[in-house]
């Protein structure tokens, strides 16, 4: 079966000089949760922005390769068109509209799909996030971090997307809240069949939720596989889960080998 989303040898250059993605390829099958892991600066967010068409305002450009969504090339389309095709990116750091109320934020999320069916969609979002319903008239700048993340995800649901791309939903949240949000993400995936592409630094959590995972470094995919296999891979265990062969946390002395071994990895 043809995958829902396919990136083939994608190259992204910022400001005409900085090469950020160096021939990246990955596929996202329909109805699954795919995780994209990697350290800071590996190019995870750039990958998402290349897909959603948000590179242009940042002076970035897909210079080579292609991105196909449901069989159609999308790397030349602008962000609004891509949203209308069914891809919705939840930006890193929540990015709610601080001076709009919760409900107005959700209305903004429904921008492309218009006002019809709005109330049902609103109820659907509130059923996943009852806390947002309690605060529907509040200005969202005053919500807690967790509630803002819920609002950001709810806003994505309002657009009725086929694919939601989540950029670090765990960023800056308390561990309990992170668990809660991941649970809801899995639930949305199961109930609604929404495909999810998840970018995370929290590798343990991401590997628990995903059906398939990619690990990227320096603008390339260096490893991929089923989460269970990746969890057993000694490199992943050491670099991303912080465990050594015996499964204990490792000591600082061993961390020093990190740089040397990492070069080999990429």
């Amino acid at each position: 079966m043809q995958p829902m989303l396919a990136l083939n040898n994608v190259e992204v250059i910022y400001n005409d000089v900085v090469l950020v993605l160096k021939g990246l390829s990955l596929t996202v099958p329909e109805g699954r949760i795919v995780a994209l892991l990697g350290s800071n600066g590996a190019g995870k967010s750039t990958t998402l922005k290349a897909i959603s068409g948000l590179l242009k305002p940042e002076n970035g450009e897909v210079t080579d390769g292609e991105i196909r969504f449901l069989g159609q090339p999308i790397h030349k389309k602008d962000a609004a068109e891509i949203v209308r095709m069914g891809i919705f990116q939840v930006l890193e750091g929540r990015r709610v509209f601080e001076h709009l109320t919760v409900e107005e934020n959700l209305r903004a999320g429904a921008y492309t799909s218009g006002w019809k069916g709005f109330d049902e969609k609103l109820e659907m979002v509130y059923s996943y996030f009852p806390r947002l319903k309690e605060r529907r008239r509040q200005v969202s700048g005053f919500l807690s971090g967790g509630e803002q993340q819920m609002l950001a995800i709810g806003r994505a649901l309002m657009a009725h997307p086929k694919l939601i791309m989540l950029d670090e939903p765990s960023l800056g949240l308390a561990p309990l809240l992170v668990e809660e949000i991941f649970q809801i993400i899995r639930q949305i995936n199961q109930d609604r069949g929404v495909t999810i592409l998840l970018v995370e630094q929290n590798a343990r959590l991401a590997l628990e939720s995903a059906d398939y995972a990619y690990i990227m470094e320096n603008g390339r995919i260096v490893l991929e596989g089923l989460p269970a296999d990746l969890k057993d891979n000694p490199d992943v265990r050491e670099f991303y889960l912080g465990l050594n062969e015996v499964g204990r946390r490792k000591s600082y002395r061993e961390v020093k080998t990190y740089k040397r071994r990492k070069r080999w990895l990429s």
Partner: protein
Amino acid sequence: MEKFIQLTLSGIANGAIFALVALGFVLIYKSSDVINFAQGELLLIGAYLTYTTVEMIGLWWPIGVVIAVVLAAIIGVLVEQLVLRPLIGEPTISVIMVTIGLSLLLRAIIGGIWGVTPRTAPQFLPRDTITLFGANVGVDRLWAFALALTLFVLLTLFFRYSREGIAMRAVADDQQAALSMGISVKRVWAIAWAIAAVTASVGGILLMSIFGGVSGQIARVGLLVFPVVILGGLDSIPGAIVGGLIIGLLQSFAGGYLPPELGMGEVAPFIVLLLILLVRPYGLFGQRIIERV
């Protein structure tokens, strides 16, 4: 007492016009961070277009006004597309220089088409006076106030409930996030300029009717936008309204009570501008970034 009421009412009427003009300015600033020094010329455009449709062509005035306002909106959108869109991503100071240039250009074009000598204009608002709270007030001032108020209410509803209105506020808050949900930022800018041109030209038309003439003098009200928005807060719509009323009243009282040879009516708003910048640079209602506690 009678003088006080008279000054208050005319101050409020003028203030409502200032507020209208300032509102367009705030909209442009909020959605695109552009400080528009050509706001005064947008007033002139509205006034001269109405002068053309009503006085020169001889249309019935409501039709003439509507045509003029629609044309002004189109000009606003064109200005945005041709002049400001290529400047996306350029430093603020370049954009400011361009809007100053734009104001000179528009002024020259207007001078080229209609000439620079003042013209007597159609006074379509009724000229008679009525007695209100024991003072004589021109009915045209009341009309101006009522019209401005209606526009405010319509715009408030637009921003609160319509799809484009909410999109505009979203863009003002976080452009990238707005883009990520498929909101077209370019479209929002075009709408902001269209609304700015409409409110400004309505302001210009009202002033023309009150002054009974069109000339470059009307554009001077565009300069008053700065005390208004600095007082109200550059990015606050309620601020533009309150600021407009305060500056209108201030101008009226300063002109009415202080010796006329001081010309305080003209100067007072700018004294306020300086004071506000010293004491409260973000204005009465301007946004300081919300900090979560």
